[in-house]
């Protein structure tokens, strides 16, 4: 990708293999993320979509070194993140908001302990009252009342819990936040509140997001660019409007056409490309292109080699052997 932009985060050839026991003494690599490269510009929101098991969550977690990458390089502000010291420094600037607001908050900690924990770990404050002040400021920022500080997570609704999780992520004044399905557990009316909050925080604090979600309409709404993953591989990456309206990869095409449109006339006129079959197990991924077993356009070349992830049009990347014939 071009160097002239100020890329905050750069990921190149990231691989994350988990080893799975298949017999008593034999293991097999599960290629959760297989050779993924992308970069995120400062202040940008990159949406990452794909179906369950495609590796989108693993990308987010490996990016923050919650999993040790099998290989590949992560650079933040142009500097590699590899040694323990680099990782610790990086984690002050890069945090995460988790999917499940029920299990991601410790039930035995009060809200102020939860939000204050990152401050304690990174020893941000020596002075108790300054620490308290910071916690209240954070709570205020995400729309929680200061009197909630001494309560426990179970006393809050799903939307409020997600606000607590966001306050915790903001505690260290990060520049980059990995949002892993942050709104998918929330009801529509609450979801809209939280999406707007992500928007506002980005404007106020100049944040950069990697926004992982399976709901394409949500990702389309919030993202500047969108990347699509399938079975551990990135298959397409482009500007949000572009990829939504003119997808190039056959998988993205079917994914976009399958989005249930909340409009009866559009939904009924919509020509859905319904794929046959299910996603193969990542333990037995097909040879060549991972999508070929469900692809309506698969040819013999698709079984032989993995298509290269390349720039098809300016700023529009895709990995498909037959991309020029099909479009």
């Amino acid at each position: 990708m071009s160097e002239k932009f100020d890329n905050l985060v750069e990921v190149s050839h990231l691989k994350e293999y988990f080893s799975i026991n298949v017999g008593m003494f034999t293991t097999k690599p599960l290629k959760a993320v297989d050779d993924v490269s992308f970069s995120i510009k400062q202040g940008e929101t990159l949406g990452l979509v794909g179906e369950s098991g495609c590796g989108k969550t693993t990308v987010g977690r490996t990016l923050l070194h919650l999993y040790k990458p099998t290989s590949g390089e992560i650079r933040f502000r142009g500097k590699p993140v590899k040694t323990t010291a680099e990782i610790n420094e990086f984690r002050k600037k890069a945090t995460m908001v988790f999917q499940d607001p029920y299990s991601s908050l410790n039930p035995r900690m009060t809200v102020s302990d939860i939000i204050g924990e990152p401050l304690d770990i990174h020893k941000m404050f020596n002075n108790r009252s300054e620490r308290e002040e910071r916690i209240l400021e954070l709570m205020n920022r995400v729309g929680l009342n200061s009197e909630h500080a001494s309560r426990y997570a179970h006393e809050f609704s799903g939307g409020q819990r997600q606000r607590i999780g966001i306050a915790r992520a903001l505690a260290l004044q990060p520049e980059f936040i990995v949002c892993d399905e942050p709104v998918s557990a929330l009801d529509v009316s609450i979801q809209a509140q939280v999406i707007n909050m992500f928007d506002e925080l980005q404007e106020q604090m100049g944040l950069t997001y990697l926004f992982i979600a399976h709901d394409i309409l949500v990702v389309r709404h919030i993202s500047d660019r969108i990347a699509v993953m399938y079975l551990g591989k990135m298959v397409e990456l482009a500007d949000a409007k572009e990829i939504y309206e003119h997808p190039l990869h056959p998988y993205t095409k079917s994914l976009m056409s399958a989005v249930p449109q909340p409009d009866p006339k559009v939904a009924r006129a919509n020509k859905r490309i319904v794929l046959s079959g299910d996603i193969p197990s990542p333990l037995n991924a097909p040879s060549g292109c991972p999508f070929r077993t469900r692809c309506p356009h698969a040819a013999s070349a698709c079984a032989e080699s993995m298509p290269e992830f390349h720039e098809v049009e300016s700023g529009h990347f895709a990995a498909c052997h037959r991309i020029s014939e099909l479009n």
Partner: protein
Amino acid sequence: MALLEVNDLHTSFFTPAGEVRAVNGISFNLDRGKVLGIVGESGSGKSVTAYSIMQILASTGKIVSGSIKLNGQELVGSGEKIMKTVRGNKISIIFQDPMTSLNPTYTIGHQLVEAITLHTSRNKKQAWDRAVEMLELVGINEPEKRMRQYPFEHSGGMRQRVMIAMALACEPDILIADEPTTALDVTIQAQILELMKDLQEKLGMAIIMITHDLGVVAQLCDEVIVMYAGSICEQGTAEEIFYNPKHEYTKGLMRSIPTADTAGTKLQPISGTPIDLLNMPAGCPFAPRCDNAMRICLRQSCERMEINAEHQAACWMNVKYKIDQESVHPENAGDTEGGDAQ
């Protein structure tokens, strides 16, 4: 006569903390061969409505009053014996989570055959053939082989197909689908919705589709009921509900969903948090979150009123518009209409 008539149904759960009125006086009719969508957020009572119709409520739950008539036959208070002939035969249900609704210790075939022999006079051999036929119908390849496999050998989409096959094996008049695609991926969801639509056209049953996803409703449903805090706020054809919403909650819901057109703009969420069913307000349940709430909304809930032949809503705002149009001073609107002069 409608196939299913639900009239003033009240279902409550009696918990140590008090009575939770999960369904609070709802009425609707379902005609043969129609697809009815029930939408609402968690806790709105949409699933409890379905469980009340099937009478499969948890032990703390009880139908307090109201009537549910299937083909004119009253089901409330009819007893387990009658209900056993209704469940599976006349009304079937598929649940949200295909991962937990099948028994992991029996093969798919065993479970299908059990369901079929229980509800029909078929013997085991005939039931087996019927099961294979049903699996074929829902688009499962190599049904004979699949019958001998266990649920863990099937993916989520496959299991939901098996559940649909089981639900339809006795040719019910009504299929209740309780969030059938919520646990599935988008492309698999498209497959299952397409399948349900095909089967509905082929077999002609009526479907009650319970979902929180307005996209699913738009795609599949002829008629839509919008629920909030156990009550129906609005009911009408899909077109009316989507293009001409007449309840403030429905309007808010429509504004808060992200679409392709909202990118780069702010969504307009409904403020506040969902209602606590243990502490229901006196008036309209949505009033505490409603931007246009008037005095009367806080005191008295609105009856369902006809907007047109295909559309009903329970919102005082419609009364206000009407009065405004008749150029009566709007400040008196609430008091005159509500007959509340305290």
